[in-house]
């Protein structure tokens, strides 16, 4: 690239870049601002976007929860009509499961998995971006129902024949169907991507049994997604064809069987709950060893129990159908299999406790949330064991006892673990730490609020209060605990306000300490004295991840580079952290280039779904974007040959930063990194 002379000459040393396509030119690695987010293929940015989107949908789902609790705070509640109540609890459940817990898991998995295996990115970076945008648009489609005639109202599981047009004539369920078809595509594509990444892109020396527990749990989760989502997809197509095109899949008068829906749904639905919890199990399996200064107890058992959970999870689905008329043989068989699946989870609980036993414990905020998961999930697991006893479940089913169970395992389990994960990895991701003291206050208020909300539901359920009912009469004895539960719900809301406050206040504090506006935030690479590879690189993570791909010799590779053992078996420091941590200043790393096509392709999909509901011309409009996205994508190389290689994002916003980036671009790209994979047909 040469400078031009004459009146159009640029300043000395500046580069001229040819940008074919002008405004629609492919963005380069040095793009900044909103465009860099919209076109990113970087797994770290994608992970952050998943997390941010999930928090946004958490607010929506949270408001829906508070509406439920306000309605039920007193008998004969007048806040929500029965119809509106049905919509609110359906959307609350659907939102929390598909738009909150699963995307938070995706956020952690996307951000951490490549780092923990020593890779630079996932196997198919553009497909990774596609997964995110399709998920986001799926959430938009689902929630567009609120503006277009009302939300879905059949429960998040939408049983037939209630889910048909006779009993649910509004379009709410159609939006549910379409939105979740999109999120399903997102998850399936992501599963293919992450499975390929973990199997294929591990650093040299990293055998499967040297991977961190979080990566293992994530791998199992991806296999569960891979095989479970298509079953839901099949059910959803049957439902779509019934509702929109007059098919007879669930028309009982014509000989159809509503149990078909239940089976297909729960064959997905049970692996789904493990999809939600396993990443959180992985998160705390990273946190607890760090704050106990001991390796995870029984690593092989942690791995195999995770695999066992994934495997056995396919054999228990009809425990959601004990009262549906499947018959005594099925009930007995699934009751037994459900009891068995408690075993591998129990193994994990014991292993976490054994890790803490005899360790040098630090009760940091992440540690407290992790212990919170262990305790709250155990409570939820115990009620789960009582459900497995089918005769007992016949009393419990469809009551608040079940509501208590799944909130203890999903909220007390998954969400507590994820919040702990936020506290733990925040320094690595953003270059500043969340306030510890506020974090602990956050934890205690959340713990108290959570137990106030869901603890009493055990009692209410066993007293006979049914689920999914918009109100209850006075005189049943439900009044006190419902009121307590509502107080608890608002306490949870307060705790999350504290959490958001913590983010804001910690950010401001760190900015001030760094020297004010325009200064980048950085932190030590390894603030917790941790064990796995993501802590071996600077905080925040450099855009290229590792300067040099590490060679792995053991589990907890980073820890073993810092510490050895003396003859008595005691821990001995063998290297200073600064000497082990990579500098993050590599400048000759080729990264896959950003691209518009993932979001272009994704943009067409919601129009196709709205078109199927309203008018096929919308489908044609959407199809144009989908086709344009596909063909543009295929024709575009995954790394733009005219793109400069990556350089550090961590420039200060002052003018001297531009000089550094110009200097980087002046380097010769180190040979066109185009092994045959780059020219492959699809990415």
């Amino acid at each position, binding site marked *: 690239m040469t400078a031009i002379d004459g009146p159009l000459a640029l300043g000395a040393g500046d580069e001229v870049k040819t940008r074919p396509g002008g405004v629609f030119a492919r963005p380069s690695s040095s793009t900044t601002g909103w465009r860099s987010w919209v076109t990113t293929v970087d797994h770290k940015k994608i992970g952050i976007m998943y997390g941010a989107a999930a928090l946004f949908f958490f607010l929506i789902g949270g408001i829906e929860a508070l509406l439920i609790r306000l309605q039920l705070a007193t008998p004969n509640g007048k806040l929500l009509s029965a119809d509106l109540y049905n919509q609110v609890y359906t959307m609350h459940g659907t939102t929390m499961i598909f738009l909150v817990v699963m995307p938070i898991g995706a956020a952690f998995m996307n951000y951490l998995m490549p780092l923990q295996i020593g890779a630079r990115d996932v196997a198919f970076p553009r497909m990774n971006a596609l997964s995110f945008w399709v998920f986001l648009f799926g959430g938009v489609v689902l929630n567009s129902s609120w503006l277009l005639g009302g939300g879905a109202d059949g429960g998040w599981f939408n049983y037939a024949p209630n889910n048909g047009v006779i009993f649910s004539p509004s379009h709410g369920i159609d939006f549910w169907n379409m939105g979740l078809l999109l999120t399903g595509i997102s998850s399936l594509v992501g599963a293919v991507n992450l499975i390929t990444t973990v199997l294929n892109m591990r650093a040299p*020396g990293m055998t499967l049994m040297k991977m961190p527990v979080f990566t293992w749990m994530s791998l199992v989760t991806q296999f569960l997604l891979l095989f479970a989502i298509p079953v839901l997809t099949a059910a959803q197509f049957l439902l779509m064809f019934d509702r929109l095109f007059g098919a007879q899949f669930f028309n009982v008068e014509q000989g159809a069987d509503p*149990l078909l829906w239940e089976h*297909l749904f729960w064959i997905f639905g049970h692996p789904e709950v493990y999809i939600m919890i396993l990443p959180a199990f992985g998160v705390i399996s990273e946190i607890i060893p760090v704050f106990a200064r001991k390796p995870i107890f029984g690593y092989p058992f942690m791995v195999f129990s995770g695999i066992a959970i994934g495997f056995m999870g396919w054999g228990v689905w*009809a425990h959601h159908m004990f009262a549906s*008329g*499947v*018959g005594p043989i099925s009930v007995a068989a699934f009751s037994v299999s459900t009891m068995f699946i408690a075993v591998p989870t129990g193994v994990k609980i014991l292993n976490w406790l054994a890790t803490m036993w005899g360790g040098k414990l630090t009760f940091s905020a992440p540690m407290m949330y992790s212990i919170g998961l262990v305790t709250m999930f155990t409570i939820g697991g115990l009620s789960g064991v009582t459900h497995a006893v089918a005769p007992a479940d016949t009393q419990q089913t469809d009551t608040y006892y079940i509501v208590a169970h799944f909130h203890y395992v999903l909220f007390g389990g998954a969400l507590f673990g994820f919040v702990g994960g936020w506290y733990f990895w925040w320094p690595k991701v953003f270059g500043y730490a969340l306030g510890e003291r506020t974090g602990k206050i956050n934890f205690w208020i959340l713990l108290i609020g959570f137990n106030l909300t869901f603890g009493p539901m055990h009692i209410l359920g066993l007293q006979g209060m049914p689920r999914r009912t918009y109100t209850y009469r006075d005189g049943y004895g439900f009044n006190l605990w419902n009121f307590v539960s509502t107080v608890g719900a608002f306490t949870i809301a307060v705790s999350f306000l504290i959490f958001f406050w913590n983010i804001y206040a910690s950010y401001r504090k760190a900015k001030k300490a760094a020297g004010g506006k325009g200064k980048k935030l950085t932190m030590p690479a390894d603030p917790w004295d941790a064990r796995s590879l993501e802590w071996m690189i600077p905080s925040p993570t450099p855009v290229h991840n590792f300067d040099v791909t590490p060679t792995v010799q053991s589990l907890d590779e980073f820890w073993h580079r810092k510490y050895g053992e003396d003859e008595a078996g005691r821990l001995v420091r*063998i290297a200073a952290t600064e000497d082990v941590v990579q500098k993050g200043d590599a400048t000759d790393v080729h990264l896959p280039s950003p691209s518009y096509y993932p979001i272009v392709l994704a943009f067409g999909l919601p129009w196709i779904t709205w078109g199927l509901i309203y008018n096929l011309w919308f489908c044609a409009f959407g199809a144009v974007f989908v086709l344009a996205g596909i063909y543009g994508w295929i024709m575009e190389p995954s790394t733009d040959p005219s793109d400069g290689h990556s350089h550090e994002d961590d420039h200060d916003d002052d003018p001297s930063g531009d000089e550094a980036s110009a200097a980087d671009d002046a380097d010769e790209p180190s040979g066109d990194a185009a092994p045959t994979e780059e020219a492959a047909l699809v990415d």
Partner: protein
Amino acid sequence: MSEISVPVAGDAHPDLEHHPEEHASDRQFVKVFLGLVVVTAVEVAWAYAPWADDHAGRLATALYWGGLMLMMSFKFFIIASYFMHLRFDSKVLTRVFYAGVVLAVAVYLIVLCTFQLFSNTTPGFAP
């Protein structure tokens, strides 16, 4: 830098399976194809077997079903192994694919069992 112990040979890519890259030749592919055609013809003939009509006994029905399922599975396996090259590729691919196949068969078979499809009760409207 700390002491680095000498690692065990072959650790760098421990999952790499060292297959000699085999290929079936074009002639072999044609032979496989012809074999599949023959099996399909046998299947069709089997399906029209006069000994397995509506009045057939339990053994005949079992043979009828079993034979068709066997031939179908055989064709599935042959196409996967030869045309899709699974025989000659890394075992990882076989495991990943057949995991899906086995899981699908198992799970859906159980579902059909709960509908008592394989018992003597009247299929159709009543559970």
